[in-house]
């Protein structure tokens, strides 16, 4: 059986900025592929290629064994790849349920009389959010009035609801408190156990390690380490991320700062 997603030596430039160079990884059904790395390492760039927002300049991108080039996020969605972006891709002034269904609205009627199925929309959104443990009293309220964690959950619930095969999450835990981050990670594990392939982007090895099956560490657009869970420990992963010697230098610096 071929992998849900496979990238092979993929690269991307923004003008003369090399954002990504020769990166390879796979995403299998029922597994979580974690992408780690510092700010500007190219994590968002990688998943934007997978999500159809950007196109790769080199290398190969395969979905279920077929080489593809996604022209738009719509193409990715049609292949069953759903994404929760770092900036969440919600429209703050629109209501929760309208955001939930944006781009995939349920309708009734035909031809010129086709209209939104508002009741189904509201009920489905409410239920999908309740499944994530978010009990919104009013799905008509603008998304802009929700807290950061709630907004994250709306975006995740939407992706889980529409993402048939692959769920991509760009730093879903970055803005969250400990409890809400735990909640989000639990849903990542749930999605994995339901047979979805998950791509989890994060800064935090402590978030990645418990749920991850495979780890890809990026640094300045290049692959620093790619490992199966059995081949790497949390300590090793943490050290890789900070870049060994650099971490020691940082510890040294921090000691100097804290001792007046």
């Amino acid at each position, binding site marked *: 059986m071929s992998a849900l997603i496979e990238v092979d030596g993929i690269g991307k430039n923004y003008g003369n900025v090399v954002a990504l160079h020769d990166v390879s990884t796979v995403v299998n059904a029922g597994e979580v592929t974690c992408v780690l790395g510092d700010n500007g390492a190219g994590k968002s760039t990688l998943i934007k290629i997978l*999500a159809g*927002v950007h196109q790769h300049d080199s290398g190969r991108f395969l979905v279920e064994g077929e080489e593809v080039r996604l022209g*738009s*996020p*719509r193409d990715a*969605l049609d292949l069953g790849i759903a*994404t929760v*972006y770092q*900036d*969440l*891709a*919600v*429209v*703050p*002034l*629109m209501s929760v349920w*309208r955001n939930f*269904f*944006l*781009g*995939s*609205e349920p*309708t009734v009627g035909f031809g010129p009389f*086709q*209209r*939104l199925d*508002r009741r189904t929309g509201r009920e489905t959104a409410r239920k999908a959010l309740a499944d994530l*443990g*978010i*009990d*919104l*009293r*009013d799905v*008509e*309220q*603008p998304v*802009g*009035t*929700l*807290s*950061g*964690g*709630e907004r994250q959950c709306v975006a995740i619930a*939407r992706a889980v609801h529409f993402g048939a095969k692959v769920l991509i999450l760009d730093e879903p835990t970055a*803005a969250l408190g400990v*409890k*809400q981050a735990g*909640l989000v990670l639990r849903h990542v594990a749930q999605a994995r156990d339901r047979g979805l392939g998950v791509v989890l982007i994060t800064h935090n090895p402590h978030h990645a390690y418990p749920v991850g099956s495979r780890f890809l560490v990026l640094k300045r657009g290049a692959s620093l380490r790619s490992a199966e869970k059995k081949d790497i420990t949390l300590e090793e992963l943490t050290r890789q991320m900070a870049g060994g010697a650099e971490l020691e230098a940082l510890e040294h610096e921090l000691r100097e700062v804290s001792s007046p």
Partner: protein
Amino acid sequence: MTTLDERVAQNGLVSRLIVRPEIGALIGALAVFVFFSIVADKFLTAAGVATWLDDSATLGIMAVAVALLMIGGEFDLSAGVMTASTALVTAILAVEVGLNVWLALLLSLVFALGVGALNGWIVVRTGLPSFIVTLGTFLALQGLNLGITRLVTNSVQVSGMRSTDGYESAGFVFASTFQVGDTPFQISIVWWLGFAALAAWVLVRTKFGNWTFAVGGSAPSARAVGVPVRRTKILLFMTTAAAGWLVGSINILRFTTVQANQGIGLEFQFIIAAVIGGCLLTGGFGSAIGAAIGALIFGMARQGIVFANWNSDWFMLFLGIMLLGAVLVNNTFRRRAERVRR
């Protein structure tokens, strides 16, 4: 699993305070109505009502279309002059070329849709502000209106629609009157109300309406979840142009004459009516019914001041105050809805 409950309760209250965008305009319209009913005797007579509804109607058609476009995050400064361009195209084709009025109207509609599509296409392709792009179209159309009219007729107007083929039937559709009691009301009022109702339905009940709010509220987010942002915006520009055609057709068939310099300056009235009706200048929020009510306020005040025998200078003062009030109210709504909470 219930860690969020207290916050949800708070948010529910906040959201309940955010009322519909047209509420402010509705209150304003009531106030203006009551005020002029008291100060001007003729205001509440059947003839008076017919007059201010007529004044509101063509403005209202445009305000509704411009509101849709503004909700979609764009402006169209060529909308005012478009009402003259389409009337001129129809008149020249019917009077000078000798086409049947219906055919002339059809070709004029094609012209309008073409200009609308061009506006939209340039805006989505270049990413330039529509303010600048449509300012260019505005100037270009203004020049074309004068230049071509002068070339064809050696004057700056086209007249003589009354003697053209199909004038009777087209006039019936676009420029007839209907009786309520013994007072004639313009058919444009029906077009206005019908168009506003249709636009309101499209906006809140259809996919396209949902996409309109989304492309105006956050175009990158809309694109990321699969909304065809470019198509939506281009269609909105085309809708505005088509509304310009409707108003141009109503005008040319009613007055049978069109001046080549007509329509200039109206574009700001459309935007003002839409803003009074609750549209945000930044897009993503507003209402079609609100824009129709904004136009009604406009018409009532403009004619009310005439009925009250005041100098029409006061209208501008009134307009300025209405606009400022509306912008302040709208801004409060937006800040409530957009406030980033953690």
